[in-house]
């Protein structure tokens, strides 16, 4: 049987980076082929080449045995190569059906749109996927999971034989992931080849047939998913063995209270939340999507207004009406969405690290002490092991894990006592994850009070000294570190009516 897709000796250079070093990859019809590797390993670059976004500097691509060139994404689509990007590329203000057929709208005479056919065609695709969705809803109003379904439907509408999914589950909850997997299995049965990029090991085991691992822009190997232990795959990815450590809970009985929160409310999102946090403590926040954890963090940080509530830093009440107030009080917030809320992507590493602390490195007339900042930036690059050609590199050119480290460096430089990490390892590979965990533990050991919000339960369990659980805007309970997953899930799904009963 010929391969559906075969990529041979693909080479790609970017300014300053050899992104792909003679990488090979193949995909058979009806298989899910997982592509794994740390961030910056070159997975996305390889797939962008396969979808016509980037052009390879060397190597060749064969589709069903025929050598092809892919000058544009359109050319790739025409060959049946569809990609679903990590950041969904939908037009938020158009409807589901309009999104699917964007650029190929069925027409009537005089350039009028044939909306009826448009909707009928879209309905047929969703019927084939066995998904119920209102075709006339505006995409911006859908959940991320539903938007993903729209992306998949769009790819299928091109009669794609190959579907590339770049971290499709990054923003999905368990139920939604199950739904996605059902669709993937159905597509598989129809002979569609699926390239599946993800960092989540359990998913890879659940859904994929083969796993190809890349590291530092090079091909490492391809293994059968079923018979290969996770630890083997991880060691292929990081080039070394990795052990999972259990959380060590320090004795904090004598520690000073760093942050106290009382009666925080806002509309239906936050309902009378109160907790306290000691210096040196890591408090994990668990909960399902939409439980209000990010909203709580943003409220404490002053990024969103609150209706009522009191915040005390080291026992003293503080008034926080803006992020500037929060930072002044020593609270830092690392957003789940680094690119939109954490970094000035077009600016360099040094400027981003200094972003929250500039006045400290400026004289009376506002002149910036660049040599000092350069030393500081280089110091952080070494200390946090930020992989970058230098502190003058624009952060948009760094991988996700390294971007996250830049954000962390920014807050370390600001020297906040309380640090709120919202999904600190989202979109970050296994090796860098371990580094971030180590960093968080070190910070706690230095006496920082840390809040970690995470949708990955293993992450919460591994890091937290105590675990706060939220559900539908309420704090349903605080458990000791190392609590059983079942107990956490029980609190995370404890609906209001049940709590009242």
């Amino acid at each position, binding site marked *: 049987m010929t391969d559906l897709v075969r990529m041979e000796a693909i080479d790609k250079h970017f300014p300053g980076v050899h992104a792909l070093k003679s990488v090979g990859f193949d995909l058979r019809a009806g298989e899910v082929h997982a592509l794994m590797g740390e961030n910056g390993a070159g997975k996305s670059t390889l797939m962008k080449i396969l979808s016509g976004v980037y052009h390879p500097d060397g190597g060749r691509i064969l589709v069903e045995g025929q050598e092809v060139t892919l000058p544009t994404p359109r050319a790739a689509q025409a060959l049946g190569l569809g990609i679903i990007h990590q950041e969904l590329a939908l037009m938020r203000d158009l409807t589901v059906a309009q999104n699917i057929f964007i650029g190929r709208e069925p027409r009537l005479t005089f350039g009028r749109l044939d909306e009826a056919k448009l909707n009928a065609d879209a309905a047929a695709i969703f019927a084939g996927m066995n998904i119920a969705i209102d075709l006339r809803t505006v995409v911006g109003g859908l959940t991320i999971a539903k938007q993903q379904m729209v992306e998949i439907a769009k790819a299928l509408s091109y009669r794609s034989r190959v579907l590339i999914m770049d971290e499709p589950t990054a923003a999905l909850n368990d139920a939604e992931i199950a739904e996605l997997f059902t669709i993937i299995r159905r597509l598989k049965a129809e002979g569609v080849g699926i390239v599946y990029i993800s960092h989540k090991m359990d998913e890879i085991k659940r859904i994929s047939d083969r796993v190809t691992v890349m590291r530092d822009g090079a091909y490492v190997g391809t293994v059968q998913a079923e018979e290969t232990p996770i630890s083997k795959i991880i060691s292929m990815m990081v080039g070394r063995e990795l052990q999972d450590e259990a959380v060590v809970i320090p004795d904090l009985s004598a520690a000073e209270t760093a942050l106290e929160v009382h009666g925080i409310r806002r509309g239906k999102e936050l309902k009378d939340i109160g907790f306290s946090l000691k210096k040196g403590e890591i408090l994990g926040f668990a909960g399902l999507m939409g439980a209000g954890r990010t909203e709580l963090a943003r409220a404490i940080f002053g*990024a969103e207004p609150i209706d009522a509530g009191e915040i005390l830093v080291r026992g003293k009440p503080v008034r926080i009406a803006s*992020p500037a107030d929060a930072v002044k009080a020593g609270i830092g917030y690392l957003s789940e969405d680094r690119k939109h809320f954490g970094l000035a992507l*077009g*600016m360099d590493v040094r400027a981003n690290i200094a972003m929250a602390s500039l006045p400290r490195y400026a004289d009376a007339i506002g002149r*910036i002490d*660049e040599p000092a900042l350069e030393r500081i930036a280089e110091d952080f690059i070494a200390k946090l092991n930020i992989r970058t050609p230098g502190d*003058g590199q624009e952060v948009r050119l760094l991988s996700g894990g390294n971007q996250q480290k830049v954000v962390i460096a920014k807050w370390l430089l600001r020297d906040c006592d309380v640090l709120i990490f919202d999904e600190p390892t989202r979109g970050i590979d296994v090796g860098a994850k371990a580094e971030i965990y180590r960093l968080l533990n070190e910070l706690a050991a230095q006496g920082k009070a840390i809040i970690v919000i995470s949708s990955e339960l293993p992450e919460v369990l591994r890091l937290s000294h105590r675990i706060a659980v939220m559900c539908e805007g309420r704090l349903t309970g605080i458990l000791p570190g190392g609590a059983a997953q079942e107990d956490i899930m029980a609190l995370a799904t404890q609906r209001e009516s049940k709590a009242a009963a």
Partner: protein
Amino acid sequence: MASTDISAKGKTISARLTPSGGAQQKLLAFASLIVLVIGFSLASPNFFQVSNIMAILQATSVNGVLAVGVTLIIITGGIDLSIGTLMTFCAVMTGVVLTWGGLPLPFGVLAALGTGAACGLVSGSLVARMRIPPFIATLGMMLVLKGMSLIVTGTKPIYFNDTPGFTTIAQGSLIGQIVPAFPVPNGVLVLFIVAGAAAWTLGRTVLGRYTFALGSNEEAVRLSGVNTDFWKIAIYTLSGAICGIAGLLIASRLNSAQPALGLGYELEAIAAVVIGGTSLSGGRGTILGTLIGALIMSVLTNGLRVLSVAPEWQTVVTGVIIIFAVYADQMRRRGKA
């Protein structure tokens, strides 16, 4: 090929001074300027004369100063359409203080700077505090200020005949007194001082860093604990004060405050900024580029006039140049991606 090598090397060196690049666009703009100068010099012997070069520089001064001011705002991702009529309003207020109030010259200067800064503060507050899109807020300010100039003056110009030395602000030549062979008008001196100060502010100071950062990702800056509203207002205020300087220059050149003048100057200034490679979407831009952009515009106007091309064609050519400049910038960026 060679040019990309140069820019790649140049970037690491000049990255500090021009945090968001645009070096290549600047290079292209500078090359265009040189080509224009050489072209016109070959076409007419009257072009490359000291007197004509001085005339070109003098003609650049007002537009150049306005363009430098609005560059700051455009780098934040904003726009200011009120700079032309603000310039006039500042000139009018100078007239009010000097001619009607009979106060000495320094008060006139203060009036211009103060009026500019105050109006910039208002624009900045509309944008930052009231969250009115900059285009709309400054469109409103443009009309308000145009009306105010006419109301204050009763639509009649105010002359500065009673203030000795007022015309020397733009027309005299401090440098000419020291180096007679090189009679650079004071207006040009002012332009270079303003540009130098602005470039320094952008490249070296906290205000400058936040200017780029706001244009690059305002929300990330806010979430870094920076009081973004304050800095945005500060940038609009500074830009307003720079408009005040332009107001002084044009009043000095005309020896009068002409209340009907002003409309159209904002677009000329924005054109200079765009030709100079500053991105209208914010985050990138340089003062040097703006300066080159402003020079290209006045060299074109002057050169075409020297060649006796009808003035109506000069505007057509300027329009084409703007479109070409932005197109070249787009091509460069697409090549990089």
